[in-house]
């Protein structure tokens, strides 16, 4: 494990499943994209695994811009996971 950290946010029902709105995690060794984070995140709890198991139903933002599993990540990034939006 590197000790470079990223900040991970969860919203709406994903926040309820993971039990947290925000957590700091170490950037996994060799992780270059959002997709590379998934095994680490899903291993954190049964709730995390449930929240993240169907990524087709999940949206991702990197540093407050919409992205996806292939978006690059780096230390210090803010990665947010949330359901499709329902405002307006």
């Amino acid at each position, binding site marked *: 494990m590197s000790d470079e950290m990223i900040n991970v946010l969860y*919203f709406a029902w994903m926040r309820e499943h993971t039990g947290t709105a925000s957590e700091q995690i170490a950037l996994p060794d060799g992780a270059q994209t959002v997709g590379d984070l998934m095994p680490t995140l899903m291993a954190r709890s049964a709730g995390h695994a449930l929240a993240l198991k169907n990524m087709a139903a999940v949206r991702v933002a990197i540093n407050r811009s919409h992205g996806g599993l292939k978006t690059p990540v780096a230390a210090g990034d803010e990665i947010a996971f949330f359901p499709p939006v329902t*405002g307006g």
Partner: protein
Amino acid sequence: MAVRVQQDDFDVGAESRALQGPAVGAIALFVGTVRSLSEDDSVTAMTLEHYPGMTEAEISRIEDEARARWPLLGVTVVHRVGRLLAGEQIVLVAVSSAHRQAAFDAAQYMMDFLKTDAPFWKAEERGDQLSWVEARQSDNDAHAKWTQE
């Protein structure tokens, strides 16, 4: 300020007046409200959660895209967050231009993109039950029609 995310209600008349000006001939406004009746459904309230920081950035980006497409004179977006009762106002998009087509198109464009891109999530209350609202396919379709042109 053109983009506001707030708990407080807003005044449609004051927002419309604020967009008037010598070159303005048309103001198009959209107000979204909390529907309590839909089919056999009865919603008493809803709570709007959002992603502070990203919300304002996304709405500003949508505004910039609308301004690049149409000759707009003024744009105001107000989106409420927190707990709202049935019948309350949720969102206002208001656009002023010299002519009506630009104002109508830009207001509709901004609402369509706000619905798919701005990070808000609604949880509806039915009695003591709280449930997250699912995204509607029709909102994705409305978004898609602007990129297919």
